[in-house]
């Protein structure tokens, strides 16, 4: 039988170290919601979401109460809308109408985000894909909880540089449309290389076409728990350090597995995956930056950061994989700047630069996340930053992403305020030299040689 010390350990993780389940995300396929008219499609989408997810929030709250573990977010991901709306959407307005339908369905069931206003264009864009991408600025500025993503490259297909160029321009437009709120629309958009079909985390969640009709994916968290565990092994060697991270990751992930199984059982929806991610929040004691400091760095970004992060990420996976029956999504340590107090501090004091973050993204899950840059940054420069990050993902056969916010009206050294889980971000320095001629070439970058494995 369980003993009192084990009970105390678990409850201290929850009460003092911010252990929580970051999200229960229900993936819903909208492939059966096509129709003859825009209204028809919107009605079907609304109906399917509000029926499938009607109990999602209630079940999440029940589980929280019965197990005493906070579940911070309840979310929905849907089939990429470019596929669902392609037949009936002939204008930007048409796609924005679908975005508003998603927004209203999400609000009806009470979830805090709905993802999947997306297009998959790794090799080429259909007219519908291109129209959806062009509609993203309006879709994000005219809705509250809709999140959007575009997959522009993969190891198998290379990088669609036409899409990369278009997205640079699109991000600037989205920033301009929401300049009154520090260009907040850009916080709801991610551009990916090798996007996973089962990611539960926003803003990049969508329900891939390889998935079942409905699925429950769970994202765990717990940087504070890892940080506290590491405090007890200060000065010990890497073997001890790694063992400690692994054991802690196991415990954190087991809680996620329990919540996922329970949610799946109570909702009658199959369990998909656990995303083994250390996801920080702006709260003190819930930070990846703090873990890196505890490992022995003065600030995140100091020499040694990439090695420390590589080790951390690997140990989190090794501990987590055994704790769960299925793992997937992004799985690793997130290194957003704005959502993590110690990363904000590191960026503000100059220890952490975009270039160092780029190196760090080679060894952690995802990529340049929640980076605020000056509002007058050129669209081609944004495309250049995206292309670099996509190349890392393509060559290293991993998921990479960019969520970048050119904050209109602000310059390097200022600060942008997004509120809530998104926190605030210092405006970071951007390399001022041009890549115009590179981005304006057009076409696509071929897949790397090591993708030909057949």
């Amino acid at each position, binding site marked *: 039988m369980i003993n009192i010390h084990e009970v105390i350990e678990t409850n201290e993780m929850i009460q003092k170290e911010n252990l929580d389940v970051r999200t229960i995300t229900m993936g819903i396929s909208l492939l059966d919601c096509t129709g003859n008219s825009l209204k028809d499609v919107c009605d079907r989408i609304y109906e399917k979401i509000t029926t499938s997810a009607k109990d999602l929030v209630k079940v999440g709250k029940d589980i929280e*109460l019965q197990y*005493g573990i906070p579940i911070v977010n309840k979310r929905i991901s849907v089939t990429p809308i470019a596929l669902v709306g392609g037949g009936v959407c002939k204008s930007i307005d048409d796609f924005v109408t679908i975005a508003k339908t998603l927004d209203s369905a999400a609000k009806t069931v009470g979830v805090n985000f709905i993802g999947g206003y997306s297009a998959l264009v790794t090799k080429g864009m259909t007219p519908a894909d291109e129209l959806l991408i062009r509609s993203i600025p309006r879709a994000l500025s005219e809705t509250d909880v809709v999140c959007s993503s575009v997959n522009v490259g993969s190891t198998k297909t290379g990088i669609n540089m036409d899409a990369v160029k278009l997205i640079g321009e699109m991000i600037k437009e989205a920033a301009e449309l929401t300049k009154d709120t520090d260009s907040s629309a850009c916080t709801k958009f991610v551009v990916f290389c090798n996007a996973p079909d089962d990611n539960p985390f926003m803003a990049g969640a969508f329900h891939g076409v390889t998935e079942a009709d409905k699925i429950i994916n769970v994202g765990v968290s717990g940087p504070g728990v890892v940080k506290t565990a590491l405090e007890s092994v200060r000065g010990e060697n890497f073997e001890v350090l790694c063992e400690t991270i692994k054991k802690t990751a196991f415990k954190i992930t087991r809680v996620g597995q329990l919540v996922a199984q329970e949610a799946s059982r109570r909702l009658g929806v199959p369990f998909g995956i656990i995303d083994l991610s250390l996801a920080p929040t702006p709260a003190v004691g819930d930070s990846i930056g703090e873990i890196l400091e505890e490992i022995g760095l003065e600030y995140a970004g100091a020499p040694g950061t990439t090695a420390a992060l590589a080790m951390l990420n690997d140990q989190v996976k090794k501990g987590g994989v055994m704790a769960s029956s299925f793992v997937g999504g992004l799985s690793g340590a997130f290194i957003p700047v704005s959502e993590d107090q110690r990363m904000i501090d590191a960026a503000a004091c100059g220890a952490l630069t975009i270039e160092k973050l780029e190196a760090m993204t080679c060894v952690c899950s995802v990529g340049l996340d929640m980076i605020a840059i000056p509002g007058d940054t050129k669209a081609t420069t944004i495309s250049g930053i995206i292309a670099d990050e996509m190349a890392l993902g393509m060559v290293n056969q991993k998921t990479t992403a960019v969520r970048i916010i050119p904050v209109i009206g602000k310059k390097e050294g200022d600060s942008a305020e997004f509120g809530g889980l998104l926190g605030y971000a210092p405006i970071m320095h951007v390399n001022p030299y041009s890549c115009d001629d590179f981005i304006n070439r057009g076409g696509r970058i071929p897949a790397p040689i090591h993708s030909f494995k057949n």
Partner: protein
Amino acid sequence: MNKAVITVVGKDTVGIIAKVCTYLANNKVNILDISQTIVQDYFNMMMIVDTNESVKEFKTLSEELIQIGEEIGVVISLQREEIFNMMHRI
């Protein structure tokens, strides 16, 4: 059996266990195990209980225990046992 764990954390005072046990007995919640310890000057008690025969729903039990805790100045929580088993047993 529907096993749950009750934890009581706070400053030690007369009658904590009596009060919680009386409440549980009145609601037909069976106590399977009790242990207590002092951590950093705080009184920590854990009870493993069976709520199978309980006359009240889990949610109500949980809310009323929290309220009893507030009356005697300790923090009481009720959680289903699986969360601890999952974390500490393979």
